[in-house]
């Protein structure tokens, strides 16, 4: 495969703080013209990344939201036979030209487009187990044939393909082999500060400290069924700011816990902890050694 050394590089955007390895992985996928497969905890910004890659590269973006009923062929094109049958029955529309009944899917559109696109295939693991296998050739060669017309659609510009997966199903090896893989790790405190700064630039530093201490402490609790994620943290801070919660209140309580914990068992566990007179941490030193290097 030819390697384009002068490819357009992604360097991040002001609205998305990406760790170095992630930027490298994006660039690697652009340079090698292979799809980038992103995995990671929910809420680590897998889907949002595509929008920012598109923004950073100055390319338009197309999204293919995969559902449990999605078929690989839907992404290429759909032949609307029922419409055509109807038209022929009632004499409306031009039935002789089959092409008017071929409707491109997101993948097909990104191939046929005149300019290079960023294509996001979101949550590929939602679909059937065989789904990724059905896309192998299309993603490899970036071309497909419309069976009904015999026409071949080849990508004028290979789109930058980003694929996200939540690990609900294992992806087939043959598919994985064609991808560049990146696992988005949960951000550490330093990175998290930067991320929060993007969304809430004027947040008081001591308040932020308290917020992060509570947040990471919650994440450390092993019996939580669902750990709060970055996006939930950002929402929670919005709620705190709206309500004007002070630094002192936050020391002893976790207000608006519903923004962070989404399972009733988790909320109950926290209430029980409170009821037992459990103390919430106030200083970083009360968290594990991981936070105190």
């Amino acid at each position, binding site marked *: 495969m030819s390697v384009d*050394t002068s490819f357009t590089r992604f360097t991040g955007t002001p609205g998305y703080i990406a760790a170095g390895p992630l930027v*490298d992985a994006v660039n690697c996928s652009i340079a*090698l013209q292979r799809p980038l497969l992103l995995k990671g905890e929910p809420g680590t910004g897998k889907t949002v990344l595509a929008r920012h890659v598109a923004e950073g590269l100055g390319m338009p973006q197309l999204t293919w939201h995969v559902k449990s009923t999605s078929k690989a062929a839907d992404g290429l094109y759909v032949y609307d036979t029922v419409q055509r*049958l*109807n038209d*022929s*029955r009632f004499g409306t529309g031009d039935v002789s030209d089959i092409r008017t009944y071929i409707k491109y899917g997101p993948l097909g559109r990104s191939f046929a487009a005149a300019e290079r696109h960023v294509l996001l295939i979101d949550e590929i693991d939602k679909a059937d*187990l065989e789904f990724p296998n059905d896309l192998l050739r299309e993603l490899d060669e970036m071309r497909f044939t419309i069976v009904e017309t015999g026409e071949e659609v080849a990508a004028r510009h290979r789109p930058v393909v980003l694929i996200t997966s939540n690990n609900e199903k294992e992806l087939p090896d043959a598919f994985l082999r064609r991808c*560049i893989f990146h696992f988005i790790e949960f951000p550490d405190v330093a990175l998290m500060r930067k991320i929060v700064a993007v969304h809430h630039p004027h947040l008081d530093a001591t308040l932020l400290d308290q917020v992060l201490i509570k947040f990471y402490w919650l994440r450390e609790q092993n019996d939580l069924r669902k750990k709060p994620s970055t996006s939930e943290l950002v929402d929670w801070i919005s709620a705190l700011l709206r309500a004007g919660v002070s630094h002192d209140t936050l020391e002893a309580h976790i207000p608006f816990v519903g923004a962070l914990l989404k399972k009733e068992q988790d909320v109950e566990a926290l209430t029980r902890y409170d009821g037992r007179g459990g103390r919430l941490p106030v200083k970083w030193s009360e968290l594990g050694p991981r936070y105190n290097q």
Partner: protein
Amino acid sequence: MFLDLFYGLRDEGVPVAIQEWLAFVDALEAGLHGSSLLRFYHLGRACLVKSEVYFDAYDRVFARLFHGIEGSVDDEITEQLLEWLKDPKALPELTPEQLAAFERLDHDELMRRFLDTLAEQTERHDGGDRWVGTGGRSPFGHGGTHPTGIRVGGPGGSRSAMKVAEERRFRDYRTDMTLDGRQMRVALRRLRHLTRRGLPTELDLDETIDETCRNAGEIELVFRAPRRNDVRLLLLMDVGGTMDPHYEPVSQLLTALHEERGLRAFETYYFHNCVYDHVYRSARLLREDEVPTGDLLRRLDRRWKVVIVGDAAMHPAELLEAHGNIDPRRTTPTPGIEWLKRLANHFERVAWINPEPTSEWDFVQTTRVVRRLFPMFPFSVDGVTEAVRALVAARQGEAA
């Protein structure tokens, strides 16, 4: 050379193919790694490793191969290192083995190798990538840089590749470990056998066209039933006694199975140590929860898939002899082994999942006996995946 990385990964069971290796080489050619070992580490991982499950293996191989190569080398540090090299005993925290290995090399040899390493490293910074393989195994690197925790001029402040690799943060993602609920669900997703049954709600296009043509162009829509999972699963669980330490993972398996709504039917029963005349509807094994095992065999046909979770470790008499039940109030003349044989003969697909470590199976007499009746799988992601595969493997004489 750094093909060692490729084969090292394969030895660790990471599925890397030539195609991925070539992609990696392409990426290196494009200069994507810059001149930093950390970026080289991440680039290699992105290209070669396709699941976080194998990140730990990658870390181990990387740490082994690239031990001691770190950052750029400048004169000052070179001198410092040479200083230390002359007196390896002065290095704190060397293990006796390392020290012995060190002393086996005479000073000149060590010096020569060290300089070779340096030469290769300089070469790398001129743009080549020869530095990798031999340097990684250099005795100098091991003794000189790592145990003392001294990085040779690594990028100040930021994390080093070796540190990243050696931290092994992805240990938890290894699949040969016992699994958590989510991984369990991923493994169980394979448990399916699709058939069409139920209400016709899906448009059958081919039939619609055919019928419409037959109908002289008058549109005739034909529907068919969507595909559904046809798997019926019977789960038999050993509880109490030796199974107590396995309570947590086993309950996760149970939760995962309960949440797996795709199954056509699913029933769970409990037993203690071995299946006898009765199994129990609840894990408390109360008399009112009793269900005659014979009823199960009559009611559930052979297509039911059976998963037995148990350690198969008991006193031989409990398994092999009449009145063997450990609970004296419930003994029966039929020995446990007889019931197990009936299960094995009645159902087409049975898998036994044993939470005890595989290495111990051979040392337990009853486990050996049970293994002759049922295929036995360890309680890990790989084990459950294998078990599920065995359960849904193609059958003869049954249409899909």
